[in-house]
């Protein structure tokens, strides 16, 4: 009898037989395409055990997307636990919301809180660079909204293939215009990030998008569905057939050569719809009209319903027919898996529903009530009057499979580490040094990234205090007091390839230092861990080393990881990318008026180098650019030292003793000097005698070494004594290396070279313009 009714309904939805819970229970023998959905035989068996029957096709769809690597973190979970364990009371002091929610939240004082997160959108950005990158921005911004915050800035850490490869331009043009399109239309400033080129990313670019939001403490919202009888409301864009299974299929497997896809695996974003959604959500929060809220990203409704229910009272009953569709022919499975953009799900008290609907109507946001929260402990989904899903939501969202994947120490790494760059021939004559210096300045990774960043609006909203090309972006949060936050992202895949544990610490140290040089106090970390296939034991070793290094590093620095994501399967063919843990650090500054810029603006100021320089050229930009060499061990890093340096810089900024500070990282002192000079066209005379003499190194090493813990600052003459006193008081190495010279129009390094600023800028700007076309704004 039931079967007959099913058949009638099915005719309407153009499906032969509706696979209801009842049908599934009655037909245990039916074969199901779990393999094509990315589930392994034992995972499928586990679902059958959990349910005590075979899953319906809708349940299978839900489990397959939610148990995918992208959503379940099944290969990384056992490692990520370390972030929760390695925590001190100091680290929790300002942490309002930690890992596991849509984004972490930090208390920054004066009643303000800030939320930030970085997330990958790598695979979609290779297939369809424009929409892939655009929806990456959209997705991370919705994570920020769902915490109750107003998004105030975005950043992007980008890694592309070899700049001279013909396909790189396609990806670069698409990704950059996708980001600028979405971000500029939303009216969010893009305050920085990274641009890297390396052939390891040729068929697998990394597009990691970061967003920052601010909120008052009382506005904090979480993703949970509490209170039986509360309504489950879906609002925003309609659900269509885009990105079906995108998360599980795209992020869980490598790209097969050829083979057309049946459904578009990508999604198309609409930034104007998202802008309306932001304002609508903020008004809903203001009116205290929602109990819990979650954005719809990967795995769409499957994810939102099962996560909200798991984090709340455990039960939810919804009617899938009430989902507003763009395409009425969608099957229930497709509706559950769709990744249509610009959608949110809220939990609303029945008595507040009217008020809720008034607000969404005002913003012209389409809304439908799908059902309600229950205390049954089951997620029940109805379609055409019949139950097609009846599961314990925790089994979908939380208790998915957890793998301890095989880990293998890569035997090739010993030979790699033994092949040190110290054996490479270093330039000895001034002419050679000059030539190699310019080669470095004009290399793709040290080149001026204005071709990229000039396409973004950095100043919209009027609160940007620092943006690209400064070391970190800075946003004013409170317009009265000047309270602000500073954010930087960093990763060096070359270092991580040589030594993933050390590479993670170096990335953390660099992001931390980049925030510190703006005068802000680093407070929290978000990470986006990009790796090859977890099924490759050597990749798992790299991953495990990275997480250990990063979690140890955070513990040592005393700042918590607040959230982030893991992206596996980044590889072309069998070749994994270099391990690339992109680390974002956020810091707080009491008054953005006291920020430190990176470029030089005044004449006759002393230039100081903070920190010691050693012969550390392994993995350096110099070794890569001049000798095409990658080997040895990455530079040493003292996180204790980084802490002292950060405190020193904050004190110097507060007392107004320095008027610029610039971090030294890839390319070492040479590149830092070039950037500081180029920024505002104020030249300098530099002498390295003290640096080379104290460390017993040659001029080339002093210029190109990438020793960590170093910063160059400029100090007005009248503050010289005070500044030196500050450094000595804290026991941090400081050496005077030169003086700014506004009239020279050149960078002169004694015993090495003199390069005019015009030549420097020309060489530095050429690579991106030559590869991708003229730069906007020059």
């Amino acid at each position, binding site marked *: 009898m039931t079967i007959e009714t099913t058949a009638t309904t099915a005719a309407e939805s153009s499906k032969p037989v509706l696979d209801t819970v009842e049908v599934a229970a009655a037909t245990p023998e039916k074969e199901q395409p779990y393999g094509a959905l990315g589930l392994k035989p034992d995972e499928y068996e586990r679902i059958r055990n959990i349910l005590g029957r075979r899953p319906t096709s809708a349940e299978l769809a839900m489990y397959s997307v939610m148990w995918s690597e992208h959503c379940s973190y099944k290969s990384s979970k056992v490692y990520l636990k370390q972030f929760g364990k390695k925590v001190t009371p100091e680290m929790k002091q300002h942490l309002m919301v930690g890992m596991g929610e849509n984004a972490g939240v930090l208390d920054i004082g004066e009643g303000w809180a800030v939320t930030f997160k970085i997330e990958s959108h790598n695979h979609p950005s290779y*297939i*369809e660079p424009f*929409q892939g990158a655009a929806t990456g921005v959209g997705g991370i911004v919705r994570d920020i909204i769902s915490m109750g915050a107003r998004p105030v800035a975005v950043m992007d850490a980008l890694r592309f293939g070899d700049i001279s490869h013909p396909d790189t331009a396609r990806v670069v043009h698409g990704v950059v215009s996708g980001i600028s399109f979405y971000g500029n239309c939303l009216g969010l400033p893009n305050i920085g990030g990274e641009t890297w080129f390396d052939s390891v990313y040729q068929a697998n670019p990394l597009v990691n998008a970061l967003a920052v939001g601010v909120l008052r403490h009382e506005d904090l919202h979480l993703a949970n569905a509490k209170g039986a009888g509360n309504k489950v409301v879906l609002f925003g*864009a309609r659900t*269509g*057939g*885009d990105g*079906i299974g995108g998360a599980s299929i795209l992020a869980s497997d490598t790209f097969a050569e050829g083979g057309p896809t049946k*459904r*578009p695996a*990508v*999604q*198309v*974003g*609409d930034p*104007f*719809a998202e802008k309306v959604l932001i304002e609508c959500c903020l008004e809903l929060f203001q009116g205290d009209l929602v109990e819990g809220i979650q954005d719809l990203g990967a795995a769409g409704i499957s994810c939102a319903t099962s996560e909200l229910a798991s984090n709340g009272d455990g039960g939810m009953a919804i009617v899938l027919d009430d989902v507003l569709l*763009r*395409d009425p022919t969608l099957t229930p499975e497709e509706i559950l898996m769709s990744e*249509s*953009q610009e959608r949110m799900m809220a939990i609303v008290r029945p008595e507040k529903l009217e008020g809720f609907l008034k607000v969404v109507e005002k913003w*012209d946001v389409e809304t439908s009530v799908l059902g309600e929260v229950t205390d049954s402990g089951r997620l029940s989904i109805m379609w055409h009057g019949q139950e097609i899903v009846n599961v314990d939501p925790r089994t979908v969202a939380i208790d998915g499979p957890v793998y301890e994947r095989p880990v293998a120490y890569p035997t090739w790494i010993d030979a790699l580490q033994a092949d040190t760059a110290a054996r490479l021939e270093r330039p000895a004559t001034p002419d050679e040094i000059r030539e190699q210096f310019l080669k470095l300045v004009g290399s793709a990774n040290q080149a001026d990234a204005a071709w990229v960043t000039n396409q973004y609006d950095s100043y919209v909203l009027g609160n940007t205090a620092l943006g690209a090309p400064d070391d970190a972006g800075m946003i004013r949060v409170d317009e009265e007091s000047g309270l602000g936050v500073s954010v930087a992202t960093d990763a060096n895949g070359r270092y991580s390839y040589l030594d993933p544990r050390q590479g993670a610490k170096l990335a953390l140290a660099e992001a931390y230092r980049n925030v510190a040089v703006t005068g802000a106090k680093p407070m929290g970390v978000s990470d986006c861990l990009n790796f090859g296939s977890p099924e490759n034991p050597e990749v798992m070793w790299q991953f495990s080393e990275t997480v250990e290094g990063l979690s140890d590093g955070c513990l040592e620095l005393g700042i918590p990881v607040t959230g982030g994501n893991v992206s596996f399967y980044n590889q072309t063919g069998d070749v994994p990318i270099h391990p690339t843990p992109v680390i974002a650090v956020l810091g707080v500054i009491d008054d953005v008026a006291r920020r430190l810029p990176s470029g030089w603006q005044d004449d006759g100021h002393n230039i100081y180098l903070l920190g010691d320089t050693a012969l550390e050229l392994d993995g350096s930009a110099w070794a890569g650019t001049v000798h095409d060499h990658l080997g040895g061990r990455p530079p040493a890093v003292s996180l204790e030292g980084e802490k002292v340096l950060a405190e020193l810089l904050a004190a110097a900024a507060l007392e107004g003793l320095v008027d610029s500070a610039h971090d030294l990282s890839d390319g070492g002192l040479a590149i830092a000097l070039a950037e500081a000079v180029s920024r505002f066209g104020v030249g300098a005379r530099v002498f390295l005698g003290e640096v080379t003499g104290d460390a017993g190194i040659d001029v080339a090493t002093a210029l190109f070494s990438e020793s960590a813990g170093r910063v160059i600052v400029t100090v007005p003459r009248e503050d010289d004594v005070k500044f030196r006193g500050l450094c000595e008081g804290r026991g941090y190495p400081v050496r005077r290396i030169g003086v700014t010279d506004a009239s020279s129009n050149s960078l002169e390094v004694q015993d090495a070279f003199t390069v005019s600023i015009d030549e420097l800028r020309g060489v530095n700007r050429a690579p991106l313009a030559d590869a991708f076309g003229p730069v906007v704004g020059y």
Partner: protein
Amino acid sequence: MPTIVVDVMPKAELLDPQGKAVAGALSRTGHAAISSVRIGKRFELTVDGPVDDELRASVQQIADEILSNSVIEDVVNIDFGDAEPAADASTEA
């Protein structure tokens, strides 16, 4: 001179923000009868020589690889203009 017309539409499953915006404008201006709008692209390619098989194949390739982005768009029609001269001829006769 023959003109070849290529029509490209966003894939049916994907969101078409432009079409959605126009549909919204139509409904606001009282055109309730129209429920949905999708916006595509029309290319008019003028050729100097004859439209032979080689050219047809090359236009098909141009349409698939350059005029459309196969990830998010479909080439829904290519009109090589054959119908027109044939029709003209019959009317004259």
